[in-house]
């Protein structure tokens, strides 16, 4: 090896070592505020991303129009048949109206949840360019009262939590991201576990550390446990998929299919505050 090659090799090694060191230094830490440079860069790029996202939606609509039109014709035919059938059911429906009144009382319980949280809506303006992670940029920031670690959800279920905030937008870590962990429990059996992401692009998560003696079945609902002080208790997370034993032999794990369609999110809700029984608003929902 001559002197020039050795020198080049040394410089390359030095570059790799420095990069590995910087990588370690820049591991995101929830306890530290977002760096100003990063949030400024996001603020500058946000309008461009917003425009491109709008354009993509329009293009997607235009491209899928012929297919949708074809499907519509087929659907119209089916709907006409369906309408005839439904007319005969109308009488039976009147009976259901009475039943509905009783169910409405049960529904009032659900509405209590809305009284417990202060919510705002937000639109998705960009996604993580990477296939490994699952993060979103949404158009609400510290100006709207968004803080780090607040919960993000859709009417269907949990989406994730805010990990960094700039004045006009913020970044959301989805529950399918491998860095995400949500204290959860199986609704029916009250079995605790942690729902962690698998890999960003899969849109799936898995529930780990489930005690082995618990008998679970596919399709059971998973909700947040409220432990860990980040996510409020009782938010629907997803349903259990295939269940298998963990390699350690002490626990089992299960795939979780999130209720929220994480690949197709357009609008989300952010829980700014959760009001406790005393009326105080604890941090992070």
């Amino acid at each position, binding site marked *: 090896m001559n002197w020039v090659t050795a020198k080049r090799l040394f410089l390359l090694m030095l570059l790799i070592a420095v990069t590995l060191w910087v990588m370690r230094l820049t*591991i995101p830490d929830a306890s530290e505020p977002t*760096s100003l*440079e990063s949030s400024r860069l996001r603020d500058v790029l946000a309008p461009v*991303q917003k425009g491109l996202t709008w354009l993509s939606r329009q293009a997607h609509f235009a491209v899928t129009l012929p297919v949708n039109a074809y499907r519509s014709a087929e659907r119209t035919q089916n709907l006409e048949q369906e309408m005839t059938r439904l007319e005969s059911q109308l009488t039976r429906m009147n009976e259901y109206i009475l039943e509905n009144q009783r169910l409405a009382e049960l529904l009032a319980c659900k509405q209590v949840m809305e009284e417990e949280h202060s919510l705002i809506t937000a639109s998705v303006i960009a996604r993580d360019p990477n296939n490994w992670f699952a993060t979103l940029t949404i158009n609400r920031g510290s100006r709207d009262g968004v803080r780090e670690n607040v919960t993000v959800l859709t009417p269907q279920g949990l989406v994730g939590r805010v990990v960094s905030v700039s004045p006009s937008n913020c970044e959301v870590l989805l529950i399918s991201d491998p860095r995400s962990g949500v204290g959860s429990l199986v609704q029916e059996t009250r079995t605790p576990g942690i729902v962690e992401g698998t*890999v960003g*692009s*899969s849109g799936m998560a898995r529930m780990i550390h489930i005690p082995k003696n618990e008998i679970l079945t596919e399709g059971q609902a998973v909700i947040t446990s409220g432990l860990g002080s980040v996510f409020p208790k009782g938010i629907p997370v997803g349903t259990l998929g295939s269940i298998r034993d963990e390699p350690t032999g002490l626990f089992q794990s299960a795939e979780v299919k999130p209720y929220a369609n994480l690949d197709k999110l357009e609008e989300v809700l952010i829980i700014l505050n959760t009001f406790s029984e005393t009326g105080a608003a604890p941090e992070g929902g």
Partner: protein
Amino acid sequence: MPFPILLLLLTGALLLQSTVLDYVAILGIKPDLVMLIVVLNGFLLGTREGAFLGYAAGMVEDLFAGSYIGLNALAKMAAGYLAGMAGLRLFRENTLVATGVAFFTTLAGSFINYLLLLYLKVEVLPFYAIVRVIIPVAVYTSLLTPLFFSRIFRFVKLKDREI
């Protein structure tokens, strides 16, 4: 290709990747345009240029994300270097060869990305990493090669003639 133009191209690719490409994602996987530009340039220009461009492009991507600075830089540097090595040994004027090179170098780059994630203690199960990300990204990205290769090839050739 002049560096400012490349940087502009890469920024454009990055913006597309965070917005438009979601609409062409298949099973949640979107192609890695930045990787494609890096490996095709590396393939045509050589190891040093490939590695340098990979490092610069990856760094732009990392700065855009604001965390794990250097993660994509190292992965793409390796991919660019490997593409450059392939360029020295293989016939460079064939789109099919370029597609194969794009597949294998993207595969290698994504695998290095995975190893670096492990180094950073971001745990991804090997099954999910290989089946849900590494292989699909390599396939999807390399399939886009015919769209870009001839343009980049023509540009590089034109530049050679000017020199």
